[in-house]
């Protein structure tokens, strides 16, 4: 079409040089045949060199025009009128030209058309559309030659010494590989690095802008483009990294990762062995070498990240537990797209092994009416776990309305652990319990989950239906031993010795099936209704058998009071309805689910059945108001019924910790929790200031709380039993806010904030004194208030410095013994500094310091100062290599530490953790791209 139009333009060339005072052009426009003067015709003056518009004027009602005050130069005068062929007229103007074109005669386009079409056909012969296509195999080049060499042989293409390609005299701006950019926008990247024999076709065309491609509208952005289509079997390459780190003693961290791609297939493998806490792929590695990240999004366009099971094998690759870890892990992942990318398969396998050794100690205080028990415990633990896991996903976009997704994952694992404890508990009156305890367990576990999701979108916008099937099963079986000796003293007099020597066989099997059907319907503009219905069937079995050792030294005598075997069957029917309004400023929704749950609990050992049924309600409401793109207010309410767990109901005793025994309660009712959240946040982009504040409050009716009985008199002083009971009056609230800003002049950012929380917990504290039980309702209030402050400065590729501090004050009181107060102050400081030095060196260091005020109970030194430092140098081309020395915990002061306050028990725990080590590391990133040559 463009060609036709070009040809339709009539070129009439006049060259006139006339002298006058000011440059101007005038004339008259008329129709060739009719001799009718044309008004409103556009007369444009364009620069001859590049067609830039200098000035335009429209002809008056008599067809006259005049362009005044024109600059000197070479121009083209263009006269245009709808449906008429363009009229071109070349003029040379000096400062003083007065040009008169006389009468410009215009011709209707329709009169020229037929003759011209003939020429167009001739011109089209050598082109395939707008594209010139070369078949690569027709141009013979030597073995291993690059694409560049092949291009030199192609007619119409020139390659200069720097590798720039010219096609038909125009420079090639872009080189694509299979229609996509190849490692950035340098055109020589592809031509120099891809081998000629990998190429199927070379296409040269004027690439339309991306915009034009999607809209189908040619916006005229043309860049000469060369596209290399690769032979199917040559679309391959790889990249990866090797990292080796050691302290030349017992700390090491070695990783190998590689990813290879071939056409639509991708295979990646990795192997990690580490004694510095790396247990798997971290976040970035996972996106390159692992499965797809679990990024989820909601209907408002928000994103959140969900991680898997949350155990030590699935925590984004770093060890978060207690003790010293040694880990090995390896995995492989394969993915493939087919059927025009409509189908996508992704499968992976992982192996993990983790050994941990470590000990720790716990100090706790149980506050009783008129008495306080202090308990000190030290422990040593050793464990090993391993797991083989698989994961598979299959996506099929059947058409633009329907999609299917099938997921399956599972694992088989084993574990072994031995823990030994020594503890001593003393009360105000000098009663004393000494306990030595060893538990061990060895067993297997496995799990299989699968689900299928079918989604269909209707033509009517907003109408959708989805159907999901879910299957879950999990089994754990362990065999272990419990050995414990408890000695009860009355001051210094030994009153009683209690010994347990048992074999424990535990087996838990859970299986569940879930089906859910959901439908959304647009009711009126911006209002949607969501309806859903689901059925869940869950079967589980819990077997906990304890065998005492008999005279023959065999664990054959079943201990009735510490053995149980239950089967559970739960059928849940649930229905839900949610109304949703999606406006420009307001988004709101309300509705809820109602679920009917039928339980059947079978006691296999005693052959009795118990049935429960619960109706659970889950109301919810949400309201969001958007002030503008960066400020919003949100308030929501969620209510939910929570039924007691199996362990809470199960009326049987568990003696895993012989001084702290759980008792079930078959009469437990559901609790109902109300939760309110409010938050507001605003960020001012131009002023670089932000503010946020939030508050949340939750209260629970019939809250499932504990009734704890401590023996304070008799032969077993210091032993505790606990049972779950329903209580009212528990609540929990917190609020906080923050403000951040930047002082633009010195480019320094600050942030500051506060937080406060209130927590009230009710429980029952009972004491048993020589078979006399007395119970008291206890109320514990925990309050805390904190402030934080931070500042940072950042200069790209220069330095990055950051300081952050948090100070908080905590108080805790229990009504059961108001004379015991636990008030303390904690403050943390964190300094981070990263500097990029010349000669490709980089230094960074950080100090984390935590100070915790001592209390009557927590009298030890709990201050921790950890200082880490790192120096590295990048090497090789493109910084592909890195050599570094890292020092972890230079001061050797790290201790694992946590402090808990809950009801009338206050506990402080410290445990063994990684301390000072130095490590020399080397990292090398490698890659190889399609066709075979190595990337620069």
């Amino acid at each position: 079409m463009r060609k036709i139009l070009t040809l339709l333009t009539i070129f009439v060339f006049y060259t006139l040089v006339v002298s006058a005072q000011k440059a101007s052009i005038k004339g008259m426009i008329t129709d060739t045949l009719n001799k009718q003067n044309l008004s409103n015709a556009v007369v444009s003056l364009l620069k001859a060199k590049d067609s830039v518009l200098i000035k335009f004027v429209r002809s008056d009602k008599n067809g006259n025009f005049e362009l005044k005050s024109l600059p000197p130069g070479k121009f083209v005068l263009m006269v245009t009128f709808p449906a008429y062929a363009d009229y071109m007229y070349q003029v040379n103007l000096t400062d003083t030209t007065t040009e008169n074109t006389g009468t410009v005669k215009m011709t209707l386009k329709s009169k020229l058309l037929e003759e011209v079409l003939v020429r167009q056909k001739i011109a089209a012969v050598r082109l395939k559309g707008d594209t010139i296509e070369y078949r690569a195999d027709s141009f013979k080049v030597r073995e291993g030659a690059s694409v560049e060499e092949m291009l030199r042989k192609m007619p119409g293409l020139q390659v200069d010494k720097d590798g720039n390609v010219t096609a038909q005299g125009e420079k090639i701006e872009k080189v694509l590989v299979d229609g996509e950019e190849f490692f950035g926008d340098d055109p020589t990247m592809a031509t120099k690095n891809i081998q000629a024999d990998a190429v199927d076709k070379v296409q040269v065309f004027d690439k339309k802008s991306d915009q034009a491609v999607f809209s189908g509208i040619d916006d005229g952005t043309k860049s000469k483009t060369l596209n290399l289509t690769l032979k199917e079997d040559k679309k391959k390459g790889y990249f990866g990294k090797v990292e080796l780190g050691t302290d030349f003693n017992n700390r090491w961290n070695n990783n190998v990762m590689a990813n290879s791609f071939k056409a639509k297939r991708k295979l990646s493998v990795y192997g990690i062995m580490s004694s510095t806490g790396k247990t798997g792929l971290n976040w970035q590695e996972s996106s390159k070498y692992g499965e797809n990240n679990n990024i989820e999004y909601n209907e408002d366009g928000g994103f959140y990240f969900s991680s898997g099971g949350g155990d030590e094998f699935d925590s984004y690759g770093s060890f978060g537990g207690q003790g010293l870890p040694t880990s090995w892990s390896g995995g492989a992942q394969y993915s493939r797209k087919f059927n025009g990318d409509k189908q996508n398969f992704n499968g992976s396998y992982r192996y993990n092994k983790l050994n941990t050794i470590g000990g720790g100690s716990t100090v706790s205080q149980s506050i009783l009416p008129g008495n306080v028990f202090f308990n000190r415990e030290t422990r040593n633990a050793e464990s090993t776990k391993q797991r083989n896991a698989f994961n598979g996903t299959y996506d099929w976009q059947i058409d633009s309305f329907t999609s299917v997704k099938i997921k399956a994952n599972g694992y088989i694992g084993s574990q072994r652990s031995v823990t030994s404890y020594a503890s001593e508990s003393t009360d105000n009156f000098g009663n004393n319990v000494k306990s030595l305890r060893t538990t061990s367990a060895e067993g297997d576990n496995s799990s299989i989950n699968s689900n299928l999701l079918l989604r269909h979108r209707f033509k009517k916008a907003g109408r959708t239906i989805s159907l999901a099937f879910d299957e879950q099963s999990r089994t754990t079986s362990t065999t272990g031993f419990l050995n414990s000796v408890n000695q009860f003293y009355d001051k210094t007099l030994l009153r009683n010795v209690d010994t347990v020597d048992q074999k424990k066989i535990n087996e838990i099997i859970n299986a569940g099936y879930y089906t859910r059907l959901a439908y959304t319907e647009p009711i009126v503009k911006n209002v949607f209704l969501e309806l859903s219905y689901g059925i869940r069937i869950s079967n589980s079995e819990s077997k906990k058998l304890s065998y005492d050792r008999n005279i023959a030294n065999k664990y054959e005598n079943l201990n009735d009071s510490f053995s149980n075997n239950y089967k559970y069957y739960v059928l849940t029917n649930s229905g839900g309805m949610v109304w949703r309004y999606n406006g420009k400023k307001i988004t709101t929704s309300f509705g809820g689910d109602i679920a009917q749950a039928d339980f059947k609990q079978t006691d296999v050992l005693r052959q009795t059945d118990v049935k429960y049924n619960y109706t659970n309600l889950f109301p919810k409401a949400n309201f969001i108001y958007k002030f503008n793109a960066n400020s919003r207010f949100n308030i929501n309410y969620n209510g939910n019924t929570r039924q007691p767990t199996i362990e809470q109901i199960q009326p049987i005793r568990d003696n895993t910790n012989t001084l702290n025994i759980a008792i079930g309660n078959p009469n437990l009712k559901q609790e109902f929790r109300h939760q309110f959240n409010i938050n507001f946040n605003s960020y001012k982009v131009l002023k670089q200031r932000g503010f946020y504040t939030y508050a949340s409050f939750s209260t629970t009716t019939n809250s499932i709380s504990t009734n704890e009985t401590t023996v304070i008199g008799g032969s077993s002083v210091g032993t505790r039993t606990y049972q779950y009971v329903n209580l009212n009056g528990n609540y929990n609230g917190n609020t906080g806010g923050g403000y951040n800003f930047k002082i633009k002049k010195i480019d320094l950012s600050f942030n500051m904030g506060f937080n406060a929380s209130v927590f009230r917990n009710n429980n029952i504290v009972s004491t048993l004194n020589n078979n006399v039980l007395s119970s008291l309702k206890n109320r514990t209030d925990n309050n805390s208030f904190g402030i934080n402050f931070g500042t940072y400065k950042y200069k790209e590729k220069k330095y990055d410095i950051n300081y952050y501090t948090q100070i908080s004050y905590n108080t805790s009181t229990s009504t059961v013994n108001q004379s015991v107060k636990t008030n303390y102050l904690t403050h943390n400081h964190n300094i981070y500094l990263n500097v990029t030095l010349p000669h490709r060196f980089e230094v960074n260091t950080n100090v984390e310091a935590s100070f915790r005020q001592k209390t009557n109970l927590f009298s030890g030194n709990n201050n921790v100062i950890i200082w880490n430092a790192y120096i590295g140098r990048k090497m090789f081309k493109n910084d592909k290599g890195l050599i570094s020395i890292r020092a972890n915990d230079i001061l050797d002061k790290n201790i694992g530490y946590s402090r808990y306050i809950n009801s009338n028990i206050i506990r402080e725990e410290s445990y063994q953790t990684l301390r000072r080590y130095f490590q020399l590391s080397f990292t090398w990133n490698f890659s190889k791209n399609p066709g075979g040559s190595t990337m620069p």
Partner: protein
Amino acid sequence: MKLFITTLISAFIFFKASSQPQFILKGKIEFEKKTNLHRQLDFEEDESWRNMIKKSMPQIKTSYFDMYFNGNKTVYMPGREVVSVQKVPEWFDGPANDNTVFTDLDQQMFSSQKTVFEDVFNIQDTVRKIQWKITPDTRTIAGFECRKATSVVMDSIFVVAFYTEQIVTPGGPESFAGLPGMILGLAIPRLNTTWFATKLEMIDVKETTLVPPKKGKKTNIENLKGQLKPVMKNWGKWGDKNIWQILI
């Protein structure tokens, strides 16, 4: 060329009189603005992140603007709302998406109201001098034959415009003007955005419609640029995109 002149002469012989086309001096044009959101993501490096975001938002965001014109005055403002199921997240949408632009082509002055993050600005300045390159290519938009012109604005932003001589007012969407007719089609590849007229209503446009927007903090292009540059300097490619989007 000889053949060509012969053709020309023969064409003259068969020429028959036709009525002159109608020229339009005032009316209302509806523009459909389309932005390819997925293309905007293509420079994001993290592939899995990119693909994930792509899934969560529509490929193309469509919005409508109305332009009223009479003589040498135009006013361009947000038009009808689009109800789409998949929302574009605000953080992605970027600034200056609901601009009102009043242009007085006689005075070569414009006054525009733009929401830029938390602030509403009222920008008053002279109409941008655009060096339009005129091409011989044409296409039909909303029933009008339009000629293609191209230009580069703000040093590096390539712009394609299609204008029709049949509408005498030399205006266009946003701050684009200066062609010998009304711009009915506009494409800015770097912003992955196009504006195309969907219809023209030949209605009477009163002086009271053609007034500058009143809201917003008064500023001019130079000041606004000075204010945006330091804020956007750490935003990388998104910073450039935002500045262009605000200043066009």
